[in-house]
């Protein structure tokens, strides 16, 4: 009973605090300050999402086939060493990747998409590979033994059973991608980074937050979106979140 009462009291306090902070920001003109950047936020968010969609889409389209190819038995000899290379690649900070891609491709959208693509590629490839390799040998033997061709085995057994792990990779990769896009501003590709970095440079907190808060929200939304897709797409029998 006392715990219930305390929870109720806390909730009431929280509501009051939110109300007063809202009232205060209205009174002090803070909301108006933020709204001043609204058109910028809208435009830059579009750019931001476009960068994510293109680099992420390309990464998914490349990483999954790459993971599949690496997991084939005929590739077993090279797969592990190649995965090591990719693992090392993952440890390079994205900022460094962007810097490197700028030195080769110049400034603008192309080097930014390329840098983001590389950073996103690795987790998805790794998870696709690990997911496919993690399919139990007994399952593979059963699939072969009842007369499935290698392609049928891949699409009917391996991929469905690895799908949850693959989606986990996509989720991680795209969430990181959204959070990394602001850095693309540094090599002239725009995005919400424009508000964040300019805000920092001008010591303009409102400007900085107008970029930072939408970026954070985008990351959360993308994460939730992919989790939802995984929930719906991964077959129930191999979907831990639907068990």
């Amino acid at each position, binding site marked *: 009973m006392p715990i219930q009462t305390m929870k109720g009291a806390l909730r009431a306090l929280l509501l009051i605090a939110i109300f007063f902070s809202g009232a205060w920001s209205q009174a002090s003109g803070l909301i108006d300050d933020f709204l001043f950047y609204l058109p910028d936020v809208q435009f830059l968010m579009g750019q931001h999402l476009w960068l994510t969609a293109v680099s992420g889409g390309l990464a998914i389209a490349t990483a999954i086939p790459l993971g599949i190819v690496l997991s084939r038995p005929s590739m077993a000899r090279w797969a592990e060493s190649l995965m090591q290379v990719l693992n090392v690649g993952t440890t390079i900070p994205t900022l460094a990747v962007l810097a490197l891609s700028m030195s080769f491709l110049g400034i603008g959208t192309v080097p930014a998409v390329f840098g983001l693509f590389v950073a996103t590629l690795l987790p998805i490839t790794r998870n696709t590979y690990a997911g496919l390799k993690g399919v139990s040998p007994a399952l593979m*033997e*059963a699939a072969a033994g*009842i*007369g*499935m061709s290698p392609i049928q085995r891949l699409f009917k057994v391996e991929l*469905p059973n690895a*799908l949850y792990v693959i989606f986990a990779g996509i989720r991680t990769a795209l969430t990181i991608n959204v959070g990394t896009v602001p850095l693309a501003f540094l090599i002239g590709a725009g995005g919400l980074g424009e508000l964040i970095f300019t805000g920092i440079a001008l010591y303009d907190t409102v400007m900085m937050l107008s970029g930072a808060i939408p970026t954070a929200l985008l990351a959360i939304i993308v994460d939730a979106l992919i989790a939802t897709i995984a929930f719906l797409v991964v*077959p129930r029998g191999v979907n831990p979140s639907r068990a």
Partner: protein
Amino acid sequence: MIQLDSLTKVFDTPKGAVVAADHISMEVSAGEICILLGPSGCGKTTTLKMINRIIRPTSGKVYIDGEDTTGMNTQELRRNIGYVIQQIGLFPNMTIEENITVVPKLLGWDRAHYKERAREMMAMIALEPDAFLKRYPSELSGGQQQRIGVARALAADPPVMLMDEPFGAIDPINRAVIQDEFLKMQQELNKTIMFVSHDIDEAIKMGDRIAVFREGKLVQYSTPDDLLAAPKNAFVESFLGEDRALKRLNLVKVREIVSDDIGTVTPGDTLEKALAKIDDFGYQNSILMINDQRQPAGIITRSVARTTKGYCRDHFQNIPATVNLEDDLRKVASLMFAHDTTWLPCVDDEGRVCGQITQRAMTRHLGSRFRAREGDIREANATTGE
């Protein structure tokens, strides 16, 4: 029918070549269950898996129903061979229905046909179709999963089945149930089955014939009874265990050794007559009393018959137990031990007395086979000069 002709597998390992299966030649007749038996690493699983090319043979040929499979397309060959593995290997991403219908779909059956087939298979393995078809493998118990595994292998009605320790991972109680169910199914289906096991009791129970393997070689291939009665060498003998005579009890039915030479009395007979009959038939302790329908009604013991006057109906004792013609000797032996008796009356399905089974007849039956076999072997050795 499955024929293996000098089937050989040599594995190249870092330690050198290992011969996993060495010129295995054998034949499994249509409708028979052949058990490949042996300790681990003896080549039984390798031999089995070479039939559906999970393992590629180094040399030798496999014939199915007389047809050489060497030139066949691997996928096509496998779709016509039912395959059950110990780890079950149901596809967790598919429903039970999808699992069962996977081979019919590969073979291009139409939808109505394979849906119907799934229900048929469920009925065959005694699982309620409506309750199970839409569920996923992870929602089923191990025993239920392996039943589905068997159903999946049988769905396209292949003439031949390969089973790799199919019931090895199931607890003993469920294993016995599922073995019985499977044998019952096999009576109707008459598949030609190769079945890997390392469990001698399972082999005796399930097999029409048993092939014993050791270090890649087929050591002995014979019926369970022959195997137990006449193991070919010391290895087979030790693998079968010292209680192999007891294991044979499972294989012999009362029908085979029942003696219809049974003396009986009726309730209306006097005890004097009973005593005379006991002596006539050479019984030591007692004689069976039957009623008008020739059903066993009681026993008259010798001591009562000797010391008392009167009619049998007033002085009988209850019968310890009766056995049916279809019971196996293991049950009979168990009943004899439990009731401390050396004979038991046998009844037919209507409960009428049709003979008796004695401890002597049992030991003589088991022993005669042993003696005959040992004689054969001695003769054979003599002729080959060994």
